[in-house]
């Protein structure tokens, strides 16, 4: 799924990185816990989060997250945007809640970055 399709589906506004909206997104990941993102995400995912601070940008950059979606109308500050521009990380924001945003993307076929773990738990 392309990032611009995600942006459209979630009625997003773009804070920075409009030039990267044609990026291919392989997985979806949603968390406010950055340690969970670092532990369980795979490279090539979009991260949906309600956590708006510098560590969200660092986590995304270091874990090879392709884009950040801030949920429920949250807005990153100037310093975050500056950092994201340097790190070539697109930041977009949706009015939807985390639960709704995840549901919309899941329904459109975007698989979970944590799928390998849930399969292991379900199938033993």
């Amino acid at each position, binding site marked *: 799924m392309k990032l611009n399709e995600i942006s459209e589906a979630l009625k997003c506004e773009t804070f920075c990185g409009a030039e990267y909206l044609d990026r291919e997104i392989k997985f979806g990941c949603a968390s*406010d*816990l*950055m*340690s*969970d*993102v*670092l*532990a369980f995400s795979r*490279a090539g995912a979009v991260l949906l989060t309600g*956590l708006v*601070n*510098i*560590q*969200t940008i*660092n*986590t995304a*950059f*270091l*874990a*090879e997250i392709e884009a950040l979606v801030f949920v429920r109308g949250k807005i990153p500050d100037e310093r975050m945007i500056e950092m994201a521009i340097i*790190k070539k990380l697109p930041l977009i924001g949706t009015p939807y809640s985390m639960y709704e945003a995840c549901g919309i993307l899941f329904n459109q076929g975007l698989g979970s970055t944590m799928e390998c773990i849930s399969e292991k738990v379900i199938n033993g």
Partner: protein
Amino acid sequence: MDKTFTRTFTVVGNNFTDAGKVSTEIKMILKQLGINSTIIRRVAIASYESEMNVVMYANKADISLVVSPSEIQIVVEDVGPGIPDIELAMKEGFSTATTEMREMGFGAGMGLPNIKRNADIFNIESIMGKGTKLNITVSLN
């Protein structure tokens, strides 16, 4: 890459504003050295979790990066309170984090296990009242 690359960084405890800077620099260096991206991601995550641990719990630390033709080694040596029970600290979910740490998205007891998960060799030593030393090795072969 034939030669060994070495660099040491300093991280200051409780400086949440700059937390992540050293790991970002380490990632940039590894990219410039032409290291495989999967390896870079593992090293970057291990380094970032270590850096956050220093910021959250220690007074300061030296983080050294050594890249040889066969492996990448990160050594984190902090001056801090030390860890009273390493076995317990290595358990997923065990944490002594404060509210401020949790507000940053950390302090959920995933740090040390996550460092170990990304390392090929992981070593931890701690002396109460002095500090903690982590030795993280990721093989390039």
